């Protein structure tokens, strides 16, 4: 395994008196697929917002390819090659599917920004990758929920990231749709992109991730292989409560 691409060291983010993320430390290796799981309110999305520059840290440091990126504005983080999606999809509503994907190529990673014409050309191959090629000319409003999630991924992939942060792209999908989404993430990963994804669906974590980090109340509870982590007593407790976990053990 190569050296760490992304390193989080004691990352802390407070809202008022509550530490939503409280001293989180872990690193992500290049080419990895890492899952972040945890019960509601564990600080998963907050952590993603810290990495992508949407929130400013209250403590700790985040290093990207060895250099600190904490305090950088979101667009600067994006230009360094960190792409992300939002849990609640944020498409550019007045544009077509193709335009949404093309705009990612117009901006994104600094070295590889494309001119409008080339961006539109590349948009089609990105849409192919996520399975939206046949819907390229539709307005966003005509897309179903799973397709909107695909579009969210397409726009992020179009920025040509080295690291892709996916925030619950499979929530609310049915079994067939999840299988399709898994294929989509694998296809993106195959192009050489490191993937960090937040997910509630355990099947996704086990089937996709090489490693899982469990967050609870803003702290890292466990970090390791998905099968091992999910059997960890503390993790079960965090999800199901102390009493139920005890009963399960007895």
């Amino acid at each position, binding site marked *: 395994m190569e050296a760490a691409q992304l390193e989080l060291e004691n990352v802390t983010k407070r809202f008022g008196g509550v530490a939503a993320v409280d001293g989180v430390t872990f690193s992500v290796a290049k080419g990895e697929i890492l899952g972040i799981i945890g019960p509601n309110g564990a600080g998963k999305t907050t952590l993603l917002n810290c990495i*992508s*520059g*949407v929130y400013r840290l209250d403590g700790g440091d985040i290093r990207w390819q060895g250099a600190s990126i904490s305090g950088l*504005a*979101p*667009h600067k*983080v*994006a*230009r360094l090659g960190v*792409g*992300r999606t*939002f849990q609640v999809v*944020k*498409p*550019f*509503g*007045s*544009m077509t599917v193709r*335009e949404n994907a*093309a*705009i*990612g190529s*117009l*901006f*994104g*990673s*600094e070295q590889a*920004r494309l*001119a*409008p014409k080339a961006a539109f050309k590349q948009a089609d191959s990105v849409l192919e990758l996520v399975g939206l090629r046949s819907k390229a000319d539709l307005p966003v409003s005509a897309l179903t929920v799973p397709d909107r999630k695909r579009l969210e991924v397409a*726009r*992020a992939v*179009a*920025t040509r990231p080295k690291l892709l942060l996916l925030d619950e792209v499979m929530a609310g999908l049915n079994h067939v749709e999840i299988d399709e989404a898994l294929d989509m993430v694998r296809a993106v990963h195959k192009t050489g992109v490191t993937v960090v994804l937040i997910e509630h669906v355990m099947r996704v974590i086990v089937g996709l991730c090489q490693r899982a980090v469990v967050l609870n109340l803003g702290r890292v509870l466990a970090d390791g292989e998905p099968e091992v982590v999910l059997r960890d007593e503390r993790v079960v407790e965090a999800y199901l409560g102390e009493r139920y976990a005890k009963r399960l053990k007895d």
Partner: protein
Amino acid sequence: MIGMSASRLWNRIFIGLALAVLAYAVLAPLTSLSAAQSLNVPLLTDRLWFRIATIIAMFVVMATAWNIIGGLTGYAAFGNVAFFGIGAYTTGMLIAKAKWPFLLALPLSPVAAAAFAALVGLPLLRLRGHYFAVASLGVGVAVGELVQNIDYQGQPMFGGASGLFLPIFSIGDRGLFFFYLMLGAAAISIAVTWLVLRSRFGYGLIAIRENEEAAAVIGVNTTAYKVAAYALSAALTGLAGGIFSQWNVFINQENAFPIEYNVQMILMALLGGTGTVFGPAAGAVVLQLLIQFLSGTLPVTLSLPFVPSDAMPVIAQIILGLMLVIVVIFAPRGVIDFFGGRSRLSLAYLRRSLRETSI
């Protein structure tokens, strides 16, 4: 015409009509040249026509410029008249006080307006939605008051309440000259919008309008883009102001910072279609003609029963207000939406719009 869909037919009629109006507007003034007169070409224009056509072109500039910040970027700027006034006073002061020649002073109007917009834009554009609208309106009002009331060594710095008189620009046919100058500014505004909409910059602005947070995480420098859009909008508006000051020869707070322009340019852009290249210009032509018609300056006038003629300007305001309400509710994408081949004016369209614009 068989086989052509109704919307395409309408589209052609609209474009044909627009071209005819444009051709008349550009060519008719030439008949007033003495060379044309000596050849017995019938006179198609008079002084009144020049005045109205120049005002229309001025509003084309302002509505098109507003569209860059309000329509493309989605920031409802309510104080753009400040840039018009700054443009007017920049050229005005340079000519009246510093004795600069007009054509040398004019280019500094857009520069001054853009610089001011960038300065106030940095803090202002951090606000969103109606907070920005109200704050920008505040700036618009404040600048006008400042210009009138700043004193320097006991003397009003910018002419004060009595205004600023400019020497008359000596050129053969003033009406013709200023009409073409303003028309040129209108053409520049439309061309700038066209270029912006095809550039990375333009896509970035639209991304900001659609979702600012999503725009930021794909790598759009939202602050820089918003300030640049505001400054560009201000530069074009300031250019119109600069031309206006020399054309009108006299400027004061009332004619350089008219509060009602704020609403009018927005209404024009809304009526024509925000975010489009030609929508605001079309809206400006239609609405300004209507304003002139209702206030009785056109050869054709409207007389309503039971309404004394001196109450007509008030009636005009009421009709404009009603129009704003109707347009916003029933045609949120502007009338140009019917001519782009995308939608057809129908009862279903109005019903759908009503659904979209109501809670």
